[in-house]
Every structure is written in C-alpha cells, then in structure tokens.
C-alpha cells in the first residue's frame, strides 16, 4: 500500500513531539517515553505517580480528537496486515520494549537527545531489526 510523502506535516508533528519531550523534562523532570509512562501506569510508585501518568495518557488520547477538530477527520490509520498478525506484533512489541527498557520515543528521541550510549545502541538495533523484518515480511515471505 502506497502512502503520500508528507515532509511538512511530518516535520511539524515531529516538532510537537519534541516540544512535549522538552516540556515534560522542564516540569516533571522526566523522559517522554511511551513505554515507561505506560508501564508505570500499571504499577505506579504512588498515588501521585499514577495520577500524572493517567493524565498524560488521557492527553495522548485527546491528540487525535484535536486533530479531528482542526482538520475534520481523524488521522489516517491504515493497517496493511491481518488481525492475528497485528496482535502477534503487539505482543512482540510489548515483550521487546520491556526487555529493551524503551521504544522509539524514550530511546529514539529522548535518549538520543541526551547522547545516552544505551539509547544510541538500542535505537540502531531496533531500526535495523525493523527494516530487516519489513524486508522479510514484504519481499521474502509476502510478495
């Protein structure tokens, strides 16, 4: 399935993701990592810890609603794979980000911005693994 190249929208969206990361560090002094925020939501250290995580997740979910209000439609979500494969992928993502202690936002943006050696290694590893997986899924297994 082809998608349209959107350099301007992607740059603006990326800047907002960066802005959110900077604001979270400035106020609550924390890394804007989706994995860490979600994991801590299920096992919070305290009531306050639970509350800010819940508020953050509620805000994230509000994002597409604001997008809807601005543009008249929800952001496109095109899923080019079957449901069982999608769910298997979800389980594998959950396993990986837990063992790897982070994902695209935590390692790829915040950790890289801090020049953390762990995050640089993690990001290179998952970018390569993702590219290899997509190649195998689309050009070796699929067709």
């Amino acid at each position: 399935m082809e998608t349209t190249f959107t350099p301007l929208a992607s740059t603006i969206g990326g800047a907002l993701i960066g802005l959110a990361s900077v604001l979270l560090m400035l106020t609550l002094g924390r890394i804007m990592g989706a994995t860490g925020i979600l994991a801590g939501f299920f096992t919070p250290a305290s009531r306050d810890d639970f509350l800010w995580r819940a508020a953050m997740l509620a805000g994230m979910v509000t994002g597409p609603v604001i997008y809807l209000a601005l543009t008249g439609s929800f952001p496109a979500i095109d899923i080019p794979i079957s449901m069982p494969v999608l769910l298997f992928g979800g389980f594998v993502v959950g396993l990986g980000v837990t063992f790897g202690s982070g994902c695209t936002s935590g390692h790829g943006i915040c950790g890289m911005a801090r020049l953390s050696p762990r995050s640089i290694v993690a990001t290179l590893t998952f970018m390569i693994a993702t590219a290899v997986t997509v190649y195998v899924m689309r050009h070796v297994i699929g067709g």
Partner: protein
Amino acid sequence: MRILLAYVIGTVFGLGISISGMANPAKVLNFFDVAGTWDPSLAFVMASALAVTFVGYRLILPRPAGPMLEQRFLLPSAGRIDARLVGGSAVFGIGWGISGFCPGGVLPALGTGRIEVILFVVAMVAGIFAARALMNFRSPATPTQA
C-alpha cells in the same frame, strides 16, 4: 497543577503523533520499505523531534534548580549495554516491523476508538506483563530499584 500539565503535554504529544503520521502503520512500514513503496516521511518526524529535544535538553538539564515541579531530574542511570538491552530492542524492532505500531504511535491512536488499535494495545500490554513475569522468573532475587 502536575496533573493538568501532564494532560496538556500528553495532548501536545498526541497531536504531534497524529499530524506526523506515526499513528499510521502503513506509513511507518513504508519508511522501512526502501525496496518497495518507500515513504521517507518518518525521517522528518525523527529528525525534527530529535532536533527540538536536543536543543531543549541542552537548555533545561544544566538548570541548577532542576525541573519546576520535582526536586531533581529523574533520568535513567547510565547502565551497561548488555544482552537484555540489545536483545529487547531487536525483539521490539521485529514487532514494530510486523505491525507498524510502536508504543508512542499507538497510544494516541487509541483516541480514534478503532477496535484494531484497542486490541493491539491489549496484546502489547500482555507482552509487557509476560516480559515482566519472565524477568522475575529468571532473577527472582533481584532487588527492586529505588
């Protein structure tokens, strides 16, 4: 105040994800499909987000007073680069390559109410708890971090 700020910051993140295309698996997978229907948009998301965060962190992290609403910056300690980090990241990449959803992309996407997104998140959370159970099984004596 903390809760309101966290909500607003989450909203900025969720809007950024929505505008950027990171909530769209087809678009994310096409970034990695250089040999097929390549869409380089994701590089612009990463570069832009990284540039803003890099500059912002340089301005904020040296602040002697720390963050506005905490005693100090709560940064991950500089641990070792070990098999768990590399192996976990590789496994995450396999899952991301299969599905096109990463946690930061899929959590805001919940706001669209799409059933596929909700079920993906359920499966992902199951994976998180399965990984925790495996970790506890392998090293039950490991003390919890302070």
